C-alpha cells in the first residue's frame, strides 16, 4: 500500500515565546516509493524528522492529509491509528530507544506483546537477532549495549511484525563508520525484500545507498535529480 501526503504543513509554537509560531514543514506533497530505500537528507532543524513523524502517524499535520492506501491516517481514532502503526509500520527512532526495563529479546518482541500476543514472532526474532549479529545479547538489558548494538536492536524491533513501511530517523547519527555501513546495508537489504524504507539523516553518505533521494531545507522538500543507488556498490 502506498503512503502519500497531500499538501502537509506543520507549525510549532515556541514554548518560550508562545506568540512566535514557526513553520517546520511547508506544504509538502509526497508519495513513498514501494519496495525502495528513500533517503531524505538535510541539516539539523530542516524539518525532516517532523516530516517523517507526520508520515508515520506520530505527529498531526497542521494542514494537509496523509493516506495509507485509501485510509486517511489522521481521520482514524488514536486506537485505530496506533494499531495500524503496530501492524504496518516499523519505526527506528533517533537516538537510543531501548526500553530499559526489558531485555533485548523482550524489546524486539514488544510490538507483539504490547497487544497481548506472547507467542508470535519468536522464530523470526531469533532470525532477526542473528541477522543483526546480536543473538548472543538477547538476555542483556539495553543499558549494557553499545550504540551500534542498540541501533540494531531497534531495527530488529521495527522489523519484527514484517511491516510494509520502515521509518528510520537518523539511524546512523551516533555510529562509527563501520556500524554506519552495517546499518545502511541492512536497510538496503530490507528494501530489496520489498519493504518501503524511509530514512532521514543529515549524513550525505546515506544517499549512496538510496533508491530515491530527497533534500529538505527550511521545511521544503525537493527530490534530488541524481539517483545514487547502484547494485555494484554493495
Amino acid at each position: 500500500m502506498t503512503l502519500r501526503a497531500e499538501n502537509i504543513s506543520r507549525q510549532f509554537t515556541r514554548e518560550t515565546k508562545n506568540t512566535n509560531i514557526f513553520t517546520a514543514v511547508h506544504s509538502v506533497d509526497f508519495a513513498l516509493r514501494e519496495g525502495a530505500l528513500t533517503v531524505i537528507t538535510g541539516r539539523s532543524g530542516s524539518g525532516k524528522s517532523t516530516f517523517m513523524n507526520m508520515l508515520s502517524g506520530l505527529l498531526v499535520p497542521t494542514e494537509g492529509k496523509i493516506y495509507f492506501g485509501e485510509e486517511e491516517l489522521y481521520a482514524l481514532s488514536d486506537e485505530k491509528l496506533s494499531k495500524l502503526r503496530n501492524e504496518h509500520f516499523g519505526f527506528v527512532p533517533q537516538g537510543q530507544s531501548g526500553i530499559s526495563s526489558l531485555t533485548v529479546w523482550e524489546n524486539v518482541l514488544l510490538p507483539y506483546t504490547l497487544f497481548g500476543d506472547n507467542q508470535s514472532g519468536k522464530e523470526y526474532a531469533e532470525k532477526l537477532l542473528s541477522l543483526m549479529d546480536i543473538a548472543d545479547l538477547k538476555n542483556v538489558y539495553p543499558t549494557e549495549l553499545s550504540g551500534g548494538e542498540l541501533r540494531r536492536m531497534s531495527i530488529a524491533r521495527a522489523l519484527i511484525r514484517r511491516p510494509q513501511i520502515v521509518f528510520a530517523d537518523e539511524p546512523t547519527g551516533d555510529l562509527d563508520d563501520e556500524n554506519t555501513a552495517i546499518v545502511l546495508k541492512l536497510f538496503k537489504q530490507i528494501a530489496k525484500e520489498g519493504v518501503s524504507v524511509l530514512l532521514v539523516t543529515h549524513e550525505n553518505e546515506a544517499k549512496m545507498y538510496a533508491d530515491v533521494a530527497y533534500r529538505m531545507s527550511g521545511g521544503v522538500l525537493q527530490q534530488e535529480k541524481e539517483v545514487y543507488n547502484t547494485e555494484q556498490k554493495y
Partner: protein
Amino acid sequence: MKKITESLAYKNLSKRPGKTAALIVLSACLSFSILVGTLIVSSLKSGLASLQDRLGADIMVVPYEAITKSNLENIVLQGNTGYFYMDSSYLDKIAAMDGIGEISAQFYLASTSSGCCSVPVQIIGFDPETDFTITPWIRKSYGGKLQNMDIVVGNDLNAFVGDTLTFYGTDVHVAAKLEKTGTSLDTAVYTNEETIKKLIQSSLDKKLNTFEDVNPDHVISNILINVADGYTVEEVLNDINIHVRKVEAVRTKSMISGIAGSLQGVSEIIGILAAAVWLLAFVILVIAFAISVNGRRKEFAVLRTIGASRKKVSRIVMTEGLMVSVAGSLSGVALGILVIIPFSNLIESQLSLPFLLPAIGVIAFVSLLSFGVAVLAGTATSYVVGSKIGKADAGNLIKQDM
C-alpha cells in the same frame, strides 16, 4: 496471561529499585500520617471519655487539705500515690442534704513496693453497696462479688487473677483484672471498704502511714455525688461548700477541664503535624513521580511508535502509580499499627494524657481508610502524570529527548 500494562509497569519499577523505594516510602508516609494522626487523636479523646466515665460523678468532696496541698488532681487524675482522710460522719451529713442523688465514699491508701509493682501503687477502697463509679467498670471484667481481702487490679499492673499480693504485710487475693482505660486508673488497685480498712490498719501498725492517729473505721478519703433530678450541680456544690466546714466540694468536670484543654491542644498539634506530613509527602510524591515518568518520556514515545495508544501509555504510567501506592500505603499502615499498638503505653506516658486505643474494629476501619486515601492520592497523581504523557505527541516527545 499477565497484561502488558501490568508486566511492563512492574518491570519498570523493579528495574529502578532505588527510585521505586523512594516512591514507596513517600506513599507510605501518606497512609502512615493519616493512620497514626487519626489513631493518636482518637485515642486521646477515648482516654478522656474513659476518664470521665471512671470518675462518673458530678461532685467530689474531699478534705480541705487535699485542695490546699494541691495533690488532689495528682492523685485522682495523674495516678500519683497519696492519701488524705476526713471523718466518715461527713458522708451522713452530706447525704442528708437536699439535691443528693447518689452518694458513696472512697478510701485512699498508697502502698509500698509490692511483688506486683516496681513502684508503690494507689489502693482505692469503695463501698460496694453504694458505689456507682467503680462497680460498673469492675462488672465488665468480674461478675462475682468481691470477698473480704479480694482486690481488683488495673490493667497496667503486672499481676494476674489468682495471684496473692502483700501490702503492709497483709496478703490480698487478685480476683480480677480490669479492662484498660488508658488513664492513670490503670495503675491502681481497687478493693472493698472492709479490705482497705484492714490495709490502712496494717499501714498504721507498721508505722508506715503518715496519719498516725487515724481510726480506719471512722475515716473516708472522698465522697462522690451525683445530683438528684431537679437540682443543678452548681446548687448542690455551693450548698456543700457553704454549709459543711473543713471540706471542699469540687466539680469533677472542672478537674478534667485541665486535661481536656491539654488534650485539645495536643490533638490540634498532632492533627496539624499529620496534615503537614501528609501534604509534604503528597507534594514530594507528585514531584518525584512526575520526574520519574518525565525521565522516561523517550521510552513512552518509543512505545507509541510501536503501536501503543495514548490510553495504553497512560495506563502503564497509572499502573506504576497504583503499584507504588498500594505497596507504599500497605507498608505505611503496617508500620503505623506496629508503632501505635505496641508503643501506646509509651505514647501515653510521653504525652502525660489519658490514652485509650480504639476498638480493633475502629483501628481496622481507620487503617482501611488511611490505605484508601493514600492509594487514591497516589493514583490521582499517576493519573495526572499519565494523562499528560499520554496526551503529548509522540513525535514531539522523541524530538524533545534527542
